[in-house]
């Protein structure tokens, strides 16, 4: 058999197919998927297998807090010193009564009965009591925080053009687009609440952008473990509007419709957009619906998303979501 003789010609892919592949790949890179450890069968998992605890410097612990930074016995310590069990006390501005640790690639941190504040690059983590997480990456390539148990609140600088910052909790991945959010580990996945900015949550086939006040998952039957983690499916700002418009009443048809659209965002964004379009024409939910339509349109890569957000600012320059809209438009403008 002569190899040269048999060499088979390649059936080219269409330009549309290549465009699809490239767009999907770049979107994956934006979401930091390349920072997530590959399945072992792909062969790259080994490199990403998190090496338990290295090189973190822990300062201070509150009286009831024990902070453990573990290290794999086979792993040499990195620059920055041996891991320590924190026992000293040092005053820190926030969180009140918490400890502080500077985490590096390979660090593992477990909290006991009090929260701990940690730094990764220029990002701040507030790790709740009884939580456990691991850190991989660096400032040049991005950071991956794997939350094994408990809850972590992250304050992350906007990623515009910078390497990604992602939190993996079970099969749920949260990738930072903007600034402040919390992730709570559940059995297989997580509960995510956004305080500021925008994050992308990906769980299985579902992917959704969350804005301030929004939480994931949106199902109303998910029990919240604190008052901050409101279980309602509608966005927080929408709930506030609803409270004004429908005070003391059961949810209106418009509210139910809005909540239905919010639930559909991850699985059927087109249907969600259709509902928002209906709602933004009139009624108490029109501002929220227009905002949601623009946000979802932008997240889905539709040019109408930007137009809808601009329309929102024109109609409601001081509306409850005006700042979010401006942030989204700035973010959209900076991406390309």
């Amino acid at each position: 058999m002569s190899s040269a003789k048999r060499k088979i010609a390649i059936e080219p892919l269409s330009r549309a197919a290549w465009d699809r592949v490239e767009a999907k790949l770049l979107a994956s890179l934006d979401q930091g998927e390349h920072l997530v450890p590959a399945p072992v069968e792909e062969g790259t998992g080994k490199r990403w297998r998190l090496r338990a605890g290295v090189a973190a410097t822990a300062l201070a612990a509150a009286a009831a807090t024990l902070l453990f930074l573990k290290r794999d016995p086979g792993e040499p310590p990195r620059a920055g010193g041996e891991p320590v069990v924190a026992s000293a006390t040092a005053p820190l501005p926030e969180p009140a009564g918490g400890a502080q640790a500077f985490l590096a690639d390979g660090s593992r941190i477990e909290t006991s009965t009090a929260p701990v504040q940690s730094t990764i690059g220029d990002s701040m983590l507030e790790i709740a009591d009884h939580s456990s997480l691991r850190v991989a990456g660096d400032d040049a390539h991005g950071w991956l925080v794997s939350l094994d148990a408990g809850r972590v609140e992250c304050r992350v600088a906007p990623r515009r053009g910078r390497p990604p910052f992602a939190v993996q909790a079970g099969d749920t991945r949260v990738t930072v687009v903007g600034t402040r959010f919390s992730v709570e580990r559940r059995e297989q996945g997580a509960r995510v609440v956004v305080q500021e900015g925008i994050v992308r949550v990906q769980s299985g086939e579902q992917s959704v952008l969350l804005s301030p006040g929004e939480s994931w998952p949106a199902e109303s039957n998910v029990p919240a473990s604190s008052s901050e983690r409101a279980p309602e499916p509608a966005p927080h700002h929408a709930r506030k509007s609803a409270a004004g418009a429908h005070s003391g009443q059961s949810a209106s048809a418009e509210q139910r419709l809005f909540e239905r659209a919010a639930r559909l965002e991850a699985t059927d964004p087109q249907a969600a957009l259709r509902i928002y379009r209906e709602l933004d024409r009139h009624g108490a939910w029109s501002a929220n619906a227009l905002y949601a339509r623009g946000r979802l349109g932008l997240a889905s890569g539709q040019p109408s998303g930007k137009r809808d957000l601009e329309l929102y600012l024109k109609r409601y320059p001081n509306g409850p979501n005006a700042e979010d809209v401006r942030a989204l438009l700035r973010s959209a403008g900076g991406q390309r």
Partner: protein
Amino acid sequence: MPGESVAATTYSSDAALARRAASGDRGAQQLLFLQLKAAVHATLYRVLGSNTHMDDLLQESFLAVFRALPSYRGEAKLTTWADRIAVRVAFHYLRRSASLRASDRLPESAPALRLVTSAEENAEHRQGVARLYAQLRRLKPEYQIAFALFELDGRSVEEVAEITGVSLVAAKSRISRARRKLWDAAQRDEVLTHYLTQEDGERP
């Protein structure tokens, strides 16, 4: 990196591009994709025999490439390095799909044709290639890949060994076993026999 051996970085421009892409430079990421896409596609295509599921496989391959970029130091040409990753993706795809495949199903779309002189030859060639891949699918993924890289992608045995990460002897052995099994199958398949004898002129 201070401790890194300069001599080890043979392909310095490839390494520089990889570093920029790994650091999140969007221009470098796009350039890297442009530089590698034809090679990665060709490798996947010749191993698998069609563009079925190619979008997903390319996506999977490139994501694996970007995951592994921080480890690339320019010791090998970037396309060769990426080929190894694409072959791993193809290997796992073959292994995953083996249990789902009907034993004698032909590939969903036959590979493209080489230049042939008549419609009849064209049809014969297409059918022969389809039978060849159908028989290949019955082999272990590692045999399929070694054979496809050597016979259908025109690689040398040394390249096959390097890409698949095995010794020269193992690569030769896999190619040889795949050939023998194909010729055995050809005894029961006239179309394949005709195709192989026409292409080879002789039995291995």
